[in-house]
């Protein structure tokens, strides 16, 4: 029931400032122990109402609508990579690997489907680890580098091309997958045919296309959940872009607040004092009412909390 205060340097500093402020107030109030009656703060009230009217109207707080929201991993790369790898895996929930087939058709449209692949996560190569590796016995490989909110490593895609032996189109492809479909900066010269830059929106459309082929309830459920998860991620990604633009300035409420910090502090100080007086009155009133019920032997104590 009793919450432990969180401690930090800035919190301590705030406490110190408040105590100093209280000490100064005490000196003034020693002459007059009773607060002036309510009703003297009209200017403060106008100021506060003005400030409240300027309150930024942001989007509502996000609700936990997807599996990834509930697991608090909505924007984390690894859970997304795990989910994608599982959907691509022959042992995953999708019937006849339709997502893997669609991906293959997209990156290698001129090649025949080579059959059942192996899907692995976090596969090491010379100087790194590929997020997802889809490989076939015949030697064709699709390496997926999934980037969610993290920068591309120096020479990363080139490293995968070299490390997995993807020198020509028949060897395989590297898919650079990002929410926005960013261009790879690390693929190096002459690799345009070997690297496919793909957005999550494209992946979303692929899943929507394949869902028509899915017959099992299990496959439908997981494909729909995957769509919900990546749509949340994309929404967040667009929102972040908007925030980046808006960060250049201050809201009107922030400006008003910063212009009037002293006033704001004074209003709070008065509210602190009024709360104390109000509690003392509550103690006296409670004692009076409880004595009326329990009798004169009722004892009431009032202990200030700190």
């Amino acid at each position, binding site marked *: *029931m*009793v*919450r432990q*205060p969180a401690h930090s340097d800035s919190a301590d500093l*705030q*406490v110190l400032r*408040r*105590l100093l402020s*209280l000490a100064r107030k005490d000196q003034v109030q020693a002459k007059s122990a009773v607060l002036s009656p309510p009703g003297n703060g009209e200017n403060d009230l106008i100021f506060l109402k003005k400030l409240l009217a300027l309150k930024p109207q942001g989007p509502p707080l996000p609700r936990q609508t997807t599996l990834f929201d509930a697991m608090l991993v909505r924007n984390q790369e690894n859970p997304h990579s795990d989910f994608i790898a599982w959907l691509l895996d022959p042992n995953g929930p999708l019937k006849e690997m339709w997502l893997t087939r669609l991906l293959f058709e997209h990156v290698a449209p001129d090649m025949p489907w080579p059959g059942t692949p192996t899907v692995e996560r976090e596969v090491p190569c010379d100087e790194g680890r590929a997020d997802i590796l889809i490989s076939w016995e015949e030697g064709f490989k699709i390496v997926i580098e999934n980037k969610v909110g993290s920068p591309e490593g120096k020479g990363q895609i080139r490293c995968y091309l070299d490390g997995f032996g993807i020198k020509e189109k028949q060897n395989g492809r590297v898919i650079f997958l990002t929410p926005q479909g960013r261009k790879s900066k690390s693929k190096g010269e002459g690799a345009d045919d070997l690297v496919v830059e793909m957005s999550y929106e494209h992946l979303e459309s692929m899943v929507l296309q394949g869902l028509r082929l899915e017959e099992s309830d299990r496959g439908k459920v997981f494909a729909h959940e995957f769509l919900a998860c990546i749509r949340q991620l994309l929404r967040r990604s667009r929102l972040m872009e908007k925030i980046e633009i808006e960060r250049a300035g201050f809201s009107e409420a922030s400006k008003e607040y910063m212009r009037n910090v002293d006033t704001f502090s004074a209003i*709070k100080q008065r*509210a*602190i004092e009024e*709360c*104390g007086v*109000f*509690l003392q009155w*509550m*103690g006296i*009133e*409670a*004692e009076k*009412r*409880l004595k009326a*019920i*329990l*009798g004169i*032997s*009722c*004892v*009431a*104590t*009032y*202990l*200030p*909390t*700190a």
Partner: protein
Amino acid sequence: LIFAFLPSWATGDIQVGIAFLSDYNMKIATFGDEPDEHYVGILIRDGEGEYVKKSVAEPVKEKLSQSLREIWSHKTDMENCDCSGPLFRTFLIPSDGNFDGWAESIFDLMEELASKLGPALTAVATELNQVK
């Protein structure tokens, strides 16, 4: 903390009382800084209104819970209580700023506790004192 009690509600060094606890730092904050830390209930403290150790308070709380459960009709008040008391209700800070109404609802519950549970608190304390 407002802590009201009858001497007959004492057992050993423990004092049971009707309490209003506003759990915020009144030197640096207001009610609104801790909007959900205001409670009315039956509290177990020492004679000075200070905390008592869990090992001492817990058996008294259990005994009170058993007895009061049969009398108190607002069952949700008796859920999720820690060792500091068998019965609590939170009073959120009023969103419309009506603190007079807020205080009135707090007094109403304190009066209801006094009138409905007063005799039971005396009976429990007497029983515990006899066991000792």
